């Protein structure tokens, strides 16, 4: 049996969803029977997102140029893209900077007004990715196949969402256990 090519990516989020993923504990060993982890901040050391990925969990909103390029690549190379957690689904806490209206006031607030010593705006083109004007939920940038809210989604919810995919089925994202925000 061909193993499922499985990936996880980390955009603008706190990594809490990935921690919750690791919280599936011994079931991860079971999961490893069915999937090859081809790209993941917690399961692989590859730097380039590979071709022909079957399932990808996307944590985080789209906040900067780097996130934007990666999410387009992920969409192009992935069959089933899952918005993984509230930041991916709603922009959540990273999105709270949107209320300041644009990247400039955000940078000024963080690096000039609150800068204790040598306040200056970060500027390293090609190294530090530019902020987008707004943090966007993933589905406002590329089409998403499955939404898994939660901050973070509990390990039980993650397991319940992934398990049917291993048999080629789709999970039913309904009810408090599966779609409650927060």
């Amino acid at each position: 049996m061909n193993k499922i090519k499985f990936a996880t990516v980390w955009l603008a989020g706190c990594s809490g969803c990935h921690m919750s993923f690791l919280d599936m504990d011994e079931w991860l060993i079971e999961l490893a029977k069915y999937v090859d982890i081809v790209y993941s901040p917690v399961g692989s050391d590859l730097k380039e997102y590979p071709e022909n990925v079957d399932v990808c969990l996307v944590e985080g909103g789209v906040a900067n140029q780097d996130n934007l390029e990666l999410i387009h690549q992920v969409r192009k190379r992935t069959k089933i893209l899952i918005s993984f957690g509230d930041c991916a689904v709603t922009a959540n806490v990273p999105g709270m900077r949107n209320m300041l209206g644009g990247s400039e006031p955000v940078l000024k607030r963080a690096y000039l007004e609150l800068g204790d010593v040598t306040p200056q705006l970060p500027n390293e083109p090609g190294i530090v990715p530019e902020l987008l004007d707004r943090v966007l939920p993933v589905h406002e940038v590329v089409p998403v196949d499955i939404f898994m809210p939660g901050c973070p989604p509990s390990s039980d919810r993650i397991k319940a969402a992934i398990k049917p995919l291993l048999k080629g089925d789709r999970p039913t994202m309904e009810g408090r256990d599966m779609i409650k925000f927060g």
Partner: protein
Amino acid sequence: MSVKTLTINNIPVAAEQGKTILEAAKESGIHIPTLCYLEGVSPAAACRVCLVEIEGSNKLQPACVTQVAEGMVIYTDTPKLQQYRRMDIELLFAEGNHVCAVCVANGNCELQDLAVEVGMDHSRFPYRFPDRSVDVSHPQFGIDHNRCILCTRCVRVCDEIEGAHVWDVANRGENCYIVSGLHQPWGEVDACTSCGKCVDACPTGSIFRKGTTTDEKSRDRAKLEFLVNAREKHEWTR
């Protein structure tokens, strides 16, 4: 007193004249989701969550303010209504700044519960991220306008049960907000008795007790019902 006979979801129902569809449904054990409706105070029909279909009418009607009539044929859970209810809840989420993860009412929020009930796994409407304020000038309470859905429950409990009328609705459209006193900081409104009924009535984490942090909001909703019963039915004990 005359009785009207009607059907709700093909179930025959008898209700007193003057009752609303929502009351008639409730008496018959038929669930209609609500959000701005609050037992004991006047209905506002602000949230549109309780919309129902009535045969012969091409408009959807809010069950909380529509009175029963003889021979009415009502449906409360058609695919059309399910679709509109989900859109309604998505719009409420997209309109304000509802960040469940950092909200006092997380896990104890009627908006969050409704999102689950209508099957909202994401919002198809882009979030607006409006610039709204927080007022913590009151010594005991705070109001975070980011989390306000303009249900006006606070306005109604304060006016109709407490009789203080601290709250009202200011402006129109996207600039609409709940205003305290004569557009004063809440803490400077002399009319406020600090009774806390608005905290108990608020369906989200918008009005809260100071010192409450994420997930910690609790409400004494039964207190409101008790006060109304005490006044109307002279039941003085809880």
